[in-house]
């Protein structure tokens, strides 16, 4: 087999190395959740609610239970006294909100179309589905509430009666901690708006869409009295799932092991929550002491997870005639659905979305508040661009509207107000640790060549062709610091990695977070290879198994490039210190770590390059022959390091796209997409570019094609890929990526975590381009999805006006 890894290459950081993972994935040898075989595993199929809101009067299981091959059927009533209900502290944010009580299966009533009502367990998955059809649920339909604004009105029906209200979370993010400070701030902002020469006020609506990975969810649990529970789960945070299963099922934690399969078909946040299905499958495996497997169907998946965005933002911007931004005001409303999902409960996304609303601009003053409403829809689940896809759409659109009102180029207005000195703390107290926003912006505008475009645009208009250019940008979280993650998700933010050398000089790295295809095995190997001067082929990375990896709160918020590889580098450096201490002793020279170089499989004393050792032999010496060591030293080369940056970290990117709009049909084609990225020191450009392409196309697909639709009865009408349309390869453009990097001063390698928030600047950029193309019609589009039908209608209205 030809190895694509060049032996002995010197500098692995920044190398476009072909990924190690690919060799198994392109030959069909990957092992995803559904591929993991445990002999005798039973199959589970959920019976799900067909009503958006209905009492459960009774469930008749007789016929289903009599079907040969059916082993057990659970219902809410049969388990509610046997399993602790949610909420549970381990998967509950430290934020004051109303947390609904719920069990893995609906108890008393169902609150959204698709909610799990019963669980059928059978020997064969076809039989399990047959049996699920024979479970007869007697529903009494109840009225539904589907509009978040109606849900917040005092006379609305309340979905979770015990809460007494549908307003499960509300917060003001500006002015200070106390209500008085916030009120004072509000008054000051009011006066700014009263006197500002330019004020734009608009209602921005983002529809319900999100990120469905190609691999749906799955849980495979095994139980035996000696080892306890082994749970394979499609999850981004196995260590949190383990503690949650331990608390809820009351199995002491050392007898609970959660394994995220090495190969996962995408996560994008959808596999970050702790789901109720995990609980009941684990419970069933224990109760039956037989392995139980649940593979989610796409139908179930689209009705339960991957639904996010769905916000109304009443946004106002005040500015002066020269385009200096004076003030920002926003009243946000989010449609939370029923909020029955562990860790996030739905509202944590709009919470962070409000914090990130200000984006990369200097706002002297801001007044930002948010209300989150429960409705009879599926609970919001995290989706890449966590919570701030809608708020960034609102800000990036409103900034263009201000520029149009003043009569200056939107890109000039942005540049004038971009944060230009870092570190910087935003009006919502978000800390921007480092970066050069202007460098990124100027690189973009140079590539975009606006002046030339305006010429082309006017010539095209003469031929009745409407082309337009749109700009947008985004500050994104680069890992989530404990100071934000503890309150937001009740979890630590530090990265943890164990690096273990073996006597053959090979390296094993263990990480607790569970990736879903981001290439960690290769990028981590490049970091270790660069530290020890060896070949990435000699580095093996294991992730996501709570039995073998150090604690990590999960693959979330672009943690790998920021926190995980930093912990890996720290662990490597700790081992290098030990290696050089012992080598200097062996070579009988007075030298410290910085006097040695790890390169091409050797450890060389810089003072006299003839004094050196092969990496292999010094490692073998320390592990296998730990005698004649410096005082206090002991053998072994294994280190675990924990990394927490002093302050939260960010990355910054900017987008420009050019579109042509067909005014006959409202169809538009993206002719060009240019992006400039401050991604810090890059480990592998192939991987970074892949993340950017994926995020931008996800942003385009969310903005134009995908929409979760509920009818007026709360029936979810987009439960398959024919109705919930993903962008195909033929619907999206190529993407030109240009780096405009500044090393991150707060990580050992100068790397930045990138790609999590990346889709957030896409809806604004794309809609700005369409509006720019339609400038002759004075059209401003502030509602998503951005589709030809609505664009054409706006053109008709403009023609009539």
């Amino acid at each position, binding site marked *: 087999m030809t190895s694509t890894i060049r032996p002995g290459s010197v500098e692995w950081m920044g190398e476009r190395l072909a990924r190690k993972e690919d060799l198994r994935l392109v030959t069909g040898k990957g092992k995803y959740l559904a591929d993991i075989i445990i002999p005798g595993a039973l199959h589970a199929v959920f019976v799900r609610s067909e009503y958006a809101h209905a009492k459960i009067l009774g469930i008749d299981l007789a016929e289903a239970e009599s079907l040969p091959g059916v082993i057990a059927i659970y219902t809410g009533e049969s388990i509610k006294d046997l399993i602790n209900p949610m909420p549970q502290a381990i998967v509950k944010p430290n934020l004051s909100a109303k947390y609904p009580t719920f069990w893995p299966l609906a108890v008393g009533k169902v609150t959204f179309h698709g909610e799990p009502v019963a669980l059928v367990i059978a020997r064969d998955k076809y039989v399990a589905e047959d049996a699920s059809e024979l479970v007869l649920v007697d529903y009494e339909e109840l009225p539904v509430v589907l509009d978040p604004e109606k849900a917040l009105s005092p006379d609305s029906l309340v979905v979770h009666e015990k809460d007494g209200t549908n307003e499960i979370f509300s917060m003001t993010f500006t002015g200070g901690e106390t209500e008085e400070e916030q009120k004072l701030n509000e008054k000051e902002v009011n006066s700014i708006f009263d006197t500002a020469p330019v004020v734009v006020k608009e209602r921005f609506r983002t529809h319900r869409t999100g990120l469905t990975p190609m691999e749906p969810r799955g849980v495979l649990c095994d139980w035996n009295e000696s080892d306890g529970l082994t749970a394979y789960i499609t999850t981004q945070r196995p260590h949190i799932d383990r503690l949650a299963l331990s608390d809820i099922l009351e199995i002491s934690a050392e007898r609970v092991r959660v394994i995220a399969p090495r190969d996962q078909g995408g996560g994008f946040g959808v596999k970050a929550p702790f789901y109720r299905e995990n609980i009941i499958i684990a419970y069933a495996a224990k109760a039956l002491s037989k392995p139980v497997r649940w593979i989610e169907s796409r139908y179930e998946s689209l009705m339960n997870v991957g639904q996010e965005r769905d916000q109304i933002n009443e946004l106002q911007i005040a500015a002066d005639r020269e385009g200096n931004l004076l003030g920002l005001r926003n009243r946000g409303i989010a449609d939370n659905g029923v909020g029955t999902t562990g860790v996030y409960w739905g509202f944590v996304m709009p919470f962070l979305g409000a914090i990130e609303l200000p984006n990369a601009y200097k706002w002297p003053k801001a007044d930002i508040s948010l209300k989150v409403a429960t409705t009879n829809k599926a609970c919001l689940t995290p989706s890449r661009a966590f919570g701030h896809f809608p708020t960034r759409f609102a800000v990036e659109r409103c900034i263009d509207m201000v520029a149009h009102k003043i009569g200056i180029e939107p890109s000039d207005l942005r540049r004038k107000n971009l944060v230009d000195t870092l570190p910087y703390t935003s009006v919502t107290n978000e800390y921007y640790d480092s970066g050069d926003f202007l460098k990124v912006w100027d690189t973009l505008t140079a590539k975009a060549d606006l002046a030339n475009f305006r010429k082309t645009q006017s010539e095209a208009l003469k031929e009745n062709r409407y082309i337009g250019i749109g700009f947008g940008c985004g500050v994104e979280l680069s890992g989530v610091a404990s100071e934000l993650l503890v309150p937001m998700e009740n979890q630590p933010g530090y990265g943890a990695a164990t690096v273990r050398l073996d006597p053959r000089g090979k390296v094993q790295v263990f990480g607790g977070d569970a990736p879903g295809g981001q290439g960690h095995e290769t990028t981590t190997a490049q970091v270790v290879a660069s530290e020890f001067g060896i070949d990435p082929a000699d580095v093996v990375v294991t992730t996501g198994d709570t039995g073998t990896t150090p604690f990590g709160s999960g693959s979330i918020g672009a943690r790998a490039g920021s926190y995980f590889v930093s912990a890996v580098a720290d662990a490597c450096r700790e081992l290098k210190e030990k290696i050089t201490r012992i080598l200097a002793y062996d070579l009988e020279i007075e030298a410290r770590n910085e006097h040695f170089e790890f390169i091409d499989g050797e450890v060389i004393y810089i003072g006299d390059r003839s004094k050196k050792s092969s990496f292999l032999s010094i490692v073998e010496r320390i592990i296998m022959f730990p005698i004649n060591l410096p005082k206090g030293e002991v053998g072994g080369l294994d280190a675990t390091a924990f990394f927490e940056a002093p302050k939260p970290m960010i990355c910054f990117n900017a987008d420009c796209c050019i579109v042509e709009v067909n005014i006959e049909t409202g169809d538009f084609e993206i002719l060009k997409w240019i992006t400039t990225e401050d991604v810090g020191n890059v480990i592998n450009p192939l991987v970074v570019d892949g993340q950017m392409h994926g995020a931008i196309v996800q942003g385009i697909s969310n903005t134009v094609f995908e929409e979760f639709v509920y009818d007026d009865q709360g029936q979810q009408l987009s439960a398959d890929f024919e109705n919930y*349309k993903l962008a195909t390869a*033929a619907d999206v453009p190529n993407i030109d990526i240009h780096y405009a990097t500044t090393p991150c001063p707060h990580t050992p390698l100068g790397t930045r975590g990138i790609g999590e928030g990346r889709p957030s600047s896409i809806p604004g950029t794309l809609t700005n381009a369409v509006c720019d193309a339609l400038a002759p019609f004075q059209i401003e589009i502030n509602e998503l999805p951005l589709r*030809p*039908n609505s664009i054409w*209608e706006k053109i008709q209205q403009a023609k009539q006006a």
Partner: protein
Amino acid sequence: MYPAEIKEYHRPDSINQVFEIMAHHDEGESLLLAGGQSSMQAIKSRMLRPQCIIDLQNLQELKTVKVESGTLKIGAMVRYCELAKNSALDKNFTGLKDAATHVGDRQVRNRGTIGGSVCWNYAAACTPTAVLALDGRMHLVSSKGDSRVVKADDFFLGPLDTAKSESDILICVSFEQPETKAGSAYKKWGLVKDALPVVGICAFIKLDTSGLCCEARIAVTGMGLGAQRATAGEAALLSSDGDPKSIEAAIDGICATIDAPTDLSATSDYRYQLIRNLGFEVIQIAFKRASI
């Protein structure tokens, strides 16, 4: 997700064998399976629970494309990918080729058949629309052995509803080679490329010796009613040379008689705009192709 129980699966080698198998089952219990690209969706969602499946893959005589004394005969089991490549369609029937080239995706086109598509007559489908515009004829054989030919105008009755009874088999779809010059074209609009047609429109134009239109057939789909003729639009094209004014008149005729609904995919007004936009292009291309 998984089909309901299927008691019997048969793969007959002749049409008579098909009828023998069907005789053992009540009407509607057995399902004729061609490419399976539509019926398998219904079987897997369990909206269709056939007790007996009769797989037609061995019926070689249904797989041929031939021209017999001025009639193009396309076997019911001819696949989209074959239609998209078959030169026999090049002269007058490119509308069917346009449709077949953009049905679903490559994998669907490698399996799906013209017979399966016209018999399923999904509410929004390309192939039935092209067959209707091109005045195709469905050659049916019934279990009692008699065969009949049903013109497309009488074959497509409504969504999922055609003149084929449960005990009939479709042998082929035939098209009369026009004596005069003729041309056709099909276009559709969907949110994502090659999606099911929110609006699909096919035009078939015949020219007399002096290059003026002597016959015009137009069919639309995407209105929730399967393939529909738009006769009102056709008259305006007669004896024209495809000039914009008469095409506009034809489009006005179509929009006046076709009921374009509002649904999740498009508003009624937008459907009419698409009919105008695609309709104009399609008729123009049909005229151009006819005049070559």
